């Protein structure tokens, strides 16, 4: 079972008999199985460990992994929609997120992607991701604005 902790630099370290090396966790299924099937990569990008399930780790390793994963799987969590406006080639979304208010652009024919757990993911022009965990839980005004993009 891999032993992990993080150093002061905020790097995740993998311990083995040969010493500690910094690793980067890569979730194989960031959307469908965020806490399981995690590949540990060294600085050269080669796989040096694999975690089938975070549950199999000891407490401190799991905590260390969780801190790093929180950053790598970070996406904006949309809590409300202020405006959706179409222009030439671009659609501008003004949204409220857990992280603060944000506006972003998508192409007109770039549609939100439906996730299996019912949420949707919107990808903006620069590649940032915006998740609406439960579109039906949005306030009515927001729901009305995104109605055309939901199921």
């Amino acid at each position: 079972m891999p032993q992990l902790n993080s150093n002061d630099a905020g790097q995740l370290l993998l311990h083995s008999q040969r010493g500690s090396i910094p690793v980067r966790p890569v979730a194989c299924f960031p959307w469908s199985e965020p806490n399981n099937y995690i590949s540990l990569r060294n600085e050269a990008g080669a796989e040096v460990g694999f975690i089938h399930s975070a549950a199999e780790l000891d407490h401190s390793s799991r905590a260390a992994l969780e801190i790093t994963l929180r950053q790598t799987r970070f996406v904006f969590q949309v809590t409300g929609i202020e405006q959706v406006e179409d222009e030439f080639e671009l659609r501008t979304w003004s949204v409220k997120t857990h992280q603060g208010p944000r506006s972003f652009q998508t192409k007109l024919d770039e549609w939100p992607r439906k996730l299996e757990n019912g949420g949707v993911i919107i990808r903006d022009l620069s590649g940032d991701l915006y998740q609406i965990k439960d579109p039906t839980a949005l306030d009515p005004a927001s729901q009305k604005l995104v109605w055309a993009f939901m199921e």
Partner: protein
Amino acid sequence: MSDPVSQIFDRYLDQPPTLPEQVRRRVEQACQDEIIQLYALADLDASLRLCQIWVTLTANHLAVIRVADRHLDEHIRVISRKRLEKIIEQPGLSCTVVHLLERDEEHPFVTIRYTHRQRGAIGHLLFVLDQQLNGRTLEFAPSDERYREAVLRPIREAQASVSGNRLAIVWRLLGYLRPYRVQVALGMSGAAVMTLARLLPPFFTGQVVDQVIQPFQGGTLPLTQAWPLALTLLGGLTATLIFQECAAWMRLRTMAVLGEHVARDLRTQMYDHLHKLSVSYFSSKQTGSIISRVGSDSDRIWDFIAFGVVELSLSFLLLIGLSAVLIVLDWRLGLVMTVPLPILLVLIYRNGRIMHGFFLRAWRKWSNLTDALSDVVPGIRVVKAFDQAEHEKRRFGDRNEDFTDECFRIHHVWTGFWPILMLLVHSMTILTWVFALPRLLAHGTVDLSIGTFVAFLLYMGMFFYPIEIIGQMSRLLNRALSSAHRIFDLLDTEPQLTERRDGAQLEPLRGAIEFREVTFGYDAVGQIIKGVSFRIEPGELIGLVGPSGSGKTTLANLLVRFYDVTGGEIRIDGVPLPELALGAFRRQVGMVLQDPFLFHGTIMENIRYGVPEALLSDVIAAARAANAHDFICRLASGYDTVVGERGHTLSGGERQRVSIARAILHNPRILILDEATSSVDTETEHQIQEALNRLIAGRTVVAIAHRLSTLKRATRLLVLKEGRLIEQGTHAQLLEIPNGVYRRLHDMQTQLNEVHAI
């Protein structure tokens, strides 16, 4: 704050268009008055909330400072760049974390977190630091442009001339009508006359009733007077109708032709402009998108100018004319008709807004459906091999069902709306009756004549058409404007290469090439060529060698000036490349590419492409030298065989030889040769090799070499790895280097060849 770029920042991005002045002052003060060369925004804090943290770079320092609620944090972190030891980058789904580690310290100097939106600007900064760690110092004049360019890049790529100003686009489009002022005046006046003439027939009808029929039947007008009067009115009606249709003819004809003129002008302008654009434009845009701009977008503009502009302005003219006539005829009835008009228009507009949402949904479902198709059709072998036809049928069926449901909704809404709207229009008729009848049936003085009433009813029927057109106005306008926008977007793209008008005409070239410390990257972040220097003497055969992705093709592209270098310079015969006249230079450079492109046309035309005036006997001589003559003669139509798209299909080896013949006839002083990696049979290989040997004789040749025979014959080989020139020398010399890159590549190649031989 009102320059166009700042406006785009204001409009689309939640971040300042430049480094705030107070931050600049504070940083420069903290960095011993050094000037900030580069800066970028890190927009996430430690708890991953949006924030404003500026990362700045001066000649010797790196400083990080946070702005909260427009106020600077007291704390600013400054580090000497010399102490920087390591950069650790941890990319994530939407957040990248970068640790900058200080020398001799366990603790990171600083950790920055940012979204992908800042990736370009921060990437540039990290590249400079990375270069510094590798012992190369890059200096920059202070400028806001790098930051602005990097942040705006994704938006600009989606929409080059970012401009939400619709009015400006309409004006610019109408500007294309300027050369055709006379026709526009003719067409528009024809249209106006036609519209106004349409208002006359009901008036004549009313007059016949009031002035002729009623007085005659009431006995006040004798037959002898009634007839001439009736005939005069009939004549008037006939003349009006003929006049109206003449005007209609003039309008349709003038405007349709005019639209074609404008569309043609736009197409020519776009096509000419396309040829001015650099290769980079074509690699950044999809071919289909460029084609549709020149094709269907210009067609839509024709539609808009020929019909849209006129229909729209006439509809307004007709509505206003109708209202005016009605109010003049009888103001009370006139008001009954005109007051509800705005309500109708608002209703139509609102309905359009609602329908927009429905259409979006339908569009989304439709692209789901076509995605399923475009997935499966090219992948049909996989579907069959895995026996997934049933699954695919179900998937398509579900999406088809989804789309159809959406269409049902749309039909449900519009079929409900139009009858209601029509009922409203009809209720105006009923209102007219309701208001008119008591006045018609009143005793004593009748203040409403039957003729006026009849004319009113006829005018009623004319209301509907303009209302319908105006209802479609936003759709019409949107279509035309987005087409116009795409067209102007292309026309506004500046060519990245600037050609000097008074460029040096070196003819003939000697063919000496020199690279001095050349660096190049396709974008600000990644450098593909990193400080490459070498000299090539006229007549040398140089082999470029290296693993894939090492920059060989990029180097060749720089040599023919498809792109300009970002640092250092390239000299041809001692003259810097940008100072050469591009046309004269390229005329003397030839390229034979891995996968040669043949145009649709005959083999003869393809061989003559660079020298259209070449004699047929020269064409044959070139084909002979390229070992192509024999196979061409075996084709039924010989040199007249049509090849290229939709033409006769040549094999890879045959196309290669035609392209060698094209290069031989072109007779370049400098030849760039990208050898094919794909293996052809030994006989073809031999023939191509022979052809190449004849082609390269007496020229400066830069070959991206894979064949052992080329490698052995080359005067020198340049070995590239990750954008750097790491080894050079002859084949034999390079094999001598123990653990050399070339030696390893060569060994692997030899092993592979042995495998092939087995």
